[in-house]
């Protein structure tokens, strides 16, 4: 029995999203499709134990899931619009359908991506639905990843599925006029899923790792599907995102210290970076860049690749990195990117140049509540030898910072600066 259970759960893990995507395409109803798949899994457990595991378990499961959907529709006392769904399903039933094992399951997962990440759904719902339907994560798994109670997450998923059905959120590849923005929406959701696993310290390590792996898997799938559909204009950024995630993920082991504290890039043990992921990330980025349609994900991946190439922090190509931040600023202006650029410029051309950028325009005002702005400014002032100004900036950063470990770090720096000021005073 154990081996049968394993075969069923492996088939589920491998084929669920493809089966759901194909079935939702016919019945336009997420809940019905999921229920039918659950029915089919139960049948598989029984039948495979008696008849043996079918030659093509995925196709077997698809056929039975489709029949279970038919059963459920028939039981539901055919309303007018159900007739259409029935018709579509019946047309797919082939004569002697018992042996559909060689028919490939059509791949409709790209449509599913667009539906799950439709802007008419809340961002939280988009993320949950994508993980659930395309990633195959269970409701409790997603709930624990986002630190919400299971019933809350279940409710969020049910609401999203019903809105898709009742508001007529389409199940198709968007028209070319809106294709670009809809692809961006999908990539953004995948990026957020990765970040939740990477940057946030919430949730168990196991779940967070799964979020990272899942987002990489889905980014890879998204790029493949866009290539298959010949949507060439959208491929470079999808590859760019995939490269970015791989490059970030290569540092996963090195960025957390023994006590679970964050280790800054320059302090990381670079031998612990995953070279295989770095190589793959760089290869994919090169492919993306060769298509000559640069975008923010590709630029960010290029910055990450430059960090990955440096075996020592001193080898980092800061002039190139600051140039890339400049490009990024033009594409997607934001105060956070400007701050990063200022830090890169300081590394390339000296702290005074960086400080000049920090003091330019509205940056100081826009980031006045952001402790990392003050921490970065303090660091540059310290390196420029302006110790009293550095002290004031460290104080501000310390007061704004809520993270215990970061506060401890800032306090240490603050002491160092104060000691220097005292020594200078004595001298």
């Amino acid at each position: 029995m154990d081996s049968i259970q394993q075969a069923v759960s492996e088939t589920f893990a491998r084929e669920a999203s493809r089966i759901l995507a194909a079935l939702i395409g016919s019945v336009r109803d997420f809940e019905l499709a999921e229920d039918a798949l659950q029915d089919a899994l139960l049948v598989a457990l029984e039948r495979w134990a008696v008849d043996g595991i079918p030659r093509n378990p995925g196709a077997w499961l698809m056929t039975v899931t489709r029949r279970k959907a038919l059963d459920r529709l028939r039981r539901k006392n055919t309303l007018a619009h159900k007739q259409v769904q029935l018709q579509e399903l019946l047309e797919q039933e082939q004569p002697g359908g018992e042996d559909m094992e060689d028919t490939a399951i059509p791949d409709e997962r790209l449509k599913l991506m667009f539906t799950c990440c439709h802007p008419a759904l809340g961002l939280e719902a988009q993320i949950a639905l994508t993980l659930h339907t395309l990633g195959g994560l269970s409701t409790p798994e997603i709930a624990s990843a986002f630190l919400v109670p299971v019933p809350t997450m279940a409710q969020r998923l049910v609401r999203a599925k019903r809105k898709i059905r009742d508001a007529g959120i389409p199940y198709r590849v968007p028209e070319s006029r809106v294709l670009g923005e809809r692809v961006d929406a999908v990539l953004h959701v995948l990026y957020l899923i990765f970040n939740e696993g990477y940057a946030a310290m919430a949730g168990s390590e196991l779940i967070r790792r799964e979020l990272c792996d899942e987002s990489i898997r889905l980014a890879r799938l998204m790029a493949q599907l866009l290539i298959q559909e010949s949507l060439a204009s959208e491929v470079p950024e999808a590859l760019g995102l995939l490269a970015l995630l791989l490059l970030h993920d290569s540092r996963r082991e090195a960025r957390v210290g023994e006590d679970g504290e964050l280790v800054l890039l320059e302090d990381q043990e670079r031998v612990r970076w995953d070279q295989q992921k770095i190589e793959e990330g760089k290869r994919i980025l090169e492919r993306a860049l060769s298509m000559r349609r640069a975008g923010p994900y590709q630029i960010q991946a290029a910055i990450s690749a430059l960090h990955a190439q440096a075996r020592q922090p001193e080898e980092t190509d800061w002039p190139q990195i600051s140039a890339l931040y400049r490009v990024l600023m033009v594409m997607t202006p934001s105060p956070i990117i400007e701050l990063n650029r200022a830090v890169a410029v300081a590394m390339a051309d000296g702290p005074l140049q960086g400080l000049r950028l920090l003091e330019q325009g509205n940056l100081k005002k826009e980031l006045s509540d952001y402790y990392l702005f003050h921490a970065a400014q303090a660091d540059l002032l310290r390196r420029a030898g302006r110790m009293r100004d550095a002290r004031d900036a460290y104080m501000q950063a310390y007061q704004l910072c809520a993270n215990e470990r970061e506060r401890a770090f800032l306090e240490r720096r603050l002491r160092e600066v104060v000691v220097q000021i005292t020594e200078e005073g004595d001298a």
Partner: protein
Amino acid sequence: MRYLALIYDNEAAYAAWSEEARVAEYQAYNNFGAEQAQFLGGGKALQPSNTATTVRVRDGKTLTTDGPFAETKDQIGGYYLLNCKDLDEAIEVAAKIPSATHGAVEIRPVLEFD
């Protein structure tokens, strides 16, 4: 599918519009009606919300109050009934309603009993 497009505008701001701007807006609505006719199943502009009366019946008694049901910054100024194949198409049509550029359009699917 059928959707109701509820058009919200800031009446106070509209009151300050120049005559020219109002004529242009009127023209824009006319053009919208002509260009999107294939999607429109009717629609009307409404008198301002200070003409609204809200009616409730409690314990068999009819209570009427002056003004709209909800006091909000923006008020419903009109509606269209849209016939569209799905939400994407409805969003596209709604985005062309002139008020979408200065007010907002809420699209709600019609609950069909079939």
